[in-house]
Structures are given as C-alpha cells and as structure tokens.
C-alpha cells in the first residue's frame, strides 16, 4: 500500500498486490479455521466412529461408517442419569436465585440514587475478581461445619455467588436504557414502587434476564472444581465429574465413549453460547466473567 500516492501509472501493480494480499489473507483464514475447528471436529468424528476405527495407528479422518454405540455406552455405562438429575437440579436452582436476586439488586443500582451506591458497584466488581480457587478452601470448611457439604443447597449457593455479580452488572445495563419517563408515567397513574418494578421494569429487562440466565446456566453446568471437591460421592456428582470419570489412569480409556460423552455434555452449552456470544464479548470486557 506504500504505492498509494503514485497511483495512475502504477495502478495495475497496486491492484495485483492487493489481490495477492487478499488471497494470502484468505489462505491464512482457512488455516485459522482448520486449526480452531479441528479439535471440535475430532471430538465429533471420534464420537460417531465404531471402536475399531477409533483405535487405529493411522487416524481415520473421514469415518467409513457411523454408529451410535459410543453414545449408548456413555449414557448407560456410569451414573449418567443420576448425575444428569443432579446437574439439572443445581443448574435450575442457580438460575432461579441468581435471576431473582440479580433483578432486585440491578433495579436498586440503576433506578435509585442513594449514598453508598458507588461503593457497592465497585464492591461487586472486586468480589467478582476474587480467585475461585482461593475461595474454595474457606467455603469447604464453612460448608463442612454447617452441614452444607455434599448437598444441592451448598453447590447452588456457591454458584449463585459466582454468577451474581455478572448478572447484576448485565441486568443493570438493561435497566439503565429504560427511559425514566416510562417509570414516571406509571407513577403518575398511581403505581407504587413494587408495582413499577414488577409491572413495568421487570418485563422491559426480559432480554437481559435471558442473557444472564444463559450465562448462569453455562457457569453452573460447566463447573468441575467445586462439584468435584464438595460433593465427594458418585451419586451426588454433576455431569462434568461424570465426564472426567471416563479417564482410566491405568490405560484403556474408552475414547469413543468419552468423546460421545463430551459431545452430549457440550451440546447445550454450545447452543446457548451462540445465543449470547455478542453479550459475552461486551460483558466480559465490562468486567464481570470468571474465565
């Protein structure tokens, strides 16, 4: 592009160079796509291959036959149904509480002005940045002494605390965009604060509620560390622990089944993730997601 000014005479060269660069960019883009997609492709590919085609010294990139045997093995072999049930209970609990509590707090921080508001906002940011691995030890001890260890409530509480700051932050963003006039006209019509909140404001932040629900779902669904540390029994574990349990340290891991399990486990997350991806890009930079 350095030739930009010496335009008229060199025009063909410029076009040529630009075309070559365009071509180069596209080649690079294909490389990036292949590298980033390959592990995902390989997971799916392995999940649908019959065992003899999984364990080969030369990988079979395009399976000759498709089978669902791996999926059958994955969901029958271990405590899949129990762990799925646990996951669903914990995830729903997390969703419910983080949304309700988050809505209230977000409303307070956006529709009211009061002393200490700024302090609370900063506090929420700071709390969000505390390292989860450091909180694990004291939470474990406290939950142990008050009997929450190994219970759904303990896990739900831990997850709600983890996603709440983000929920508050995102929903607050939605509240702020609602014009004050909407609220005022409701008040003029005689609505009290509770009615303004539940009849006017909450319905208007519905998109924010959906975005934060998905985020809460993904966080609670994906967590391995807390569930693994707190639940400590096969019948209490959630799905991430089920997925990790396919690994056999002595060798002989059934990789077909494990990849099928990975597909089953990842599918809902990937679908939901696609839905809120845009929100996550802005939300994460606005400071509120633990990686």
């Amino acid at each position: 592009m350095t030739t930009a000014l010496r335009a008229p005479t060199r025009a063909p060269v410029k076009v040529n160079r630009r075309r070559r660069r365009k071509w180069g960019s596209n080649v690079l883009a294909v490389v990036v796509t292949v590298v980033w997609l390959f592990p995902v492709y390989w997971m799916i590919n392995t999940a649908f291959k019959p065992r003899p085609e999984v364990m080969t010294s030369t990988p079979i990139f395009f399976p000759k036959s498709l089978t669902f045997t791996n999926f059958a093995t994955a969901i029958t072999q271990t405590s899949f149904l129990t762990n799925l049930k646990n996951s669903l209970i914990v995830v729903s609990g997390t969703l419910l509480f983080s949304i309700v509590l988050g809505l209230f707090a977000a409303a307070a921080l956006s529709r009211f002005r009061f002393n200490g508001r700024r302090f609370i906002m900063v506090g929420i940011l700071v709390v969000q940045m505390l390292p989860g691995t450091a909180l694990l030890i004291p939470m474990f001890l406290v939950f142990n002494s008050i009997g929450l260890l190994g219970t759904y409530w303990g896990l739900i509480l831990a997850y709600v605390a983890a996603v709440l700051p983000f929920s508050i932050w995102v929903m607050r963003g939605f509240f702020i965009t609602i014009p004050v006039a909407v609220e005022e006209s409701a008040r003029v019509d005689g609505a009290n604060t509770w009615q303004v909140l539940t009849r006017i404001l909450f319905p208007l932040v519905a998109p924010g509620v959906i975005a934060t629900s998905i985020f809460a779902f993904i966080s609670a669904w994906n967590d391995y560390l807390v569930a693994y540390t707190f639940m400590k029994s096969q019948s209490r574990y959630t799905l991430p622990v089920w997925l990790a349990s396919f690994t056999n340290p002595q060798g002989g891991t059934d990789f077909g089944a494990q990849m099928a399990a990975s597909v089953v486990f990842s599918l809902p997350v990937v679908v939901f993730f696609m839905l809120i991806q845009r929100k996550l890009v802005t939300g994460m930079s606005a400071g509120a997601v633990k990686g």
Partner: protein
Amino acid sequence: MTTSTAPNVPIPEAQQPAPQRPNRQRKLASPAPWFLLAPSGIVLLAVTVAPIFFLVYTSFTDYSQRTLFTGVYHVVGLSQYADILADPDFWASVVRTLLFTAAMVIGSVVIGTAVAQLMTRLGTAMRYVVTIALIFAWAMPTVASSMVWKWLFQPGYGVVNWLLTQPRVFGDMTNTDWANNAALAYLSIWLLIVWQAVPFIALTLYAALTQIPHELHEAARIDGAGEWRVWRAVTLPFLAPTLLLVTILSVIWDFNVFNQIWLVSQGGPDGATSTLGVYAYKVAFVSFKVGQGAAISVITTILLIGLTAIYVRNLIRSGEDL
C-alpha cells in the same frame, strides 16, 4: 417494599413544594433500594467476602484432616507461612506459575491480535466462517476440551502424535506420552489454553478495530506510511486500552487456571505442572493440610491483588457511570 410508595407519588396538596424538576433518579432516602439489595448482599457477603477473611484466619491455624471431624485446631501464628517460604516446592511452584502465565498470556494475546487483524482483511463470508470456528472453540466447556486434548495427544492413537511423526523431523512420536514429560505436558496444556483463550481476545479486539475511523488509516497512507508504520502509529494507540484490558484479564485468568492442568496432567509428572492453584489444591484437599493450603491461597491472592486493582480502577475510569 410497599412501604416506600409515599414519597414518590405526587401529592396534590399545599405542603408539597411546587412541582419538582423531575430528577433523573430519585434522591430521596427511600429504603427501597436497600430492601432490593439485601438478598444479593447477604449471599455475596456470606459466600465470598466472609470466606476471604476466614481463609486468612485459617492460614494462621494447623487445620488438618482430623479437624474436619473433631473440630479441634490450634492457632499457630505465622508458622504455616514460615514452612511454606522454606519449602523449595513452593518456590518452584511460584516460578513455574509466573513463567507459565507469561507464556500463556503472551501466546494468546499475540495470536489473538493477529487473528483480529486478519479478520479485518477478510470478506464478509470468510470472516463469518472464522468467527464461527472461534466461537466453537470458545464455547467448549473446559472439562470437555481437556478430555478432547487428552485424546488428541494420546500415546499410540493420538492424532497429534501421528501428525508429528509424518514429516520424519521429530522422529517417531507415535508413543510419546505427553503427560509424562514436563516440557511436553506444558506444551500441550499451553496449546489447549491458548486455543481456548484466543477467541475471546480476537473477537474483542476485532470489535475494537472496527471502531477505528477509516480516514485515519487513509491519511497515514497518503502521508506515505508503510503498513507497519500505520499499525504502530494509528491502530495501536486506538487498540491500546482494549489490549490492556484483555491482557490484564488474561493474566488473572491464566494465573488461576485449574481445570485444564488438573484434568490433563494432574499437576504431574512429579509436580512439574503444579502451578500455585494446583499446588494449593493438592496441599489442602489431597494431603489435607488445610491450614497450609490456606496460606498458599492467601499468598496467591496477594500476588494478584495489584493487577486486580489496576483492572478495577481502569473499569471505573473507563467512564462507566457508576
């Protein structure tokens, strides 16, 4: 919450001072916001703020596995810290964590920036394809991606082993056991983390790149600046705040990486991939020296406080209306 109706409803009576200029937000000392904040506040105070203090307290005790059942423990002052600071394993872990974090952050930020830059040069269709590929990698739960990684790098049957054997440069790597060699374990975990970190960085930076006014680039080119100069003089200054943000976030996240290391190498071989988080976990929950694990966690948190403070301050300054 129904108690707070009165002050805000206009009362058409004499004592009401003439129609107030409608405040953007009510400044009245209404208890409503406090009622609304209370549930979240209680949860956050009880489950995240209080435990941090309890963590510090625990680090001054000899809390151990027995204590979990008997409830008996003693305050031992600074002796846990003294033990840790005298332990070469701890120092090895600190050095390892710093180097590994630096390697992961540099890798993901550099590659992320390159991919973002690449995306600006693509046509709509190709850019869409790249975006989809990135989102797939980003969306994968870390437990699943760690399992996939173990499979990709499996001795005997791993695709990566096969691929590296093909060019006959590295010798026969078919049976290389990545998890059993410190350098290789690091390499595979590094690849995993960078693979999953790049999408967020690339998409965030790409969003920032599209905000740069086009005229600036053109002006610089007309002034005769080469591609690299244009990037240094125009793009970089615009990108700097976002770049700083993703770098700080990456440092914080990578410093605390746990799942991937734990699931891919269990911190092995022989502790070689035990970064501070994994090390603290092993001390607290495998050896069950809880007091000592707490002390390691306190040190880890202190190491991160500076960065977290910069990050929070930046956010507050960035004009976000608190």
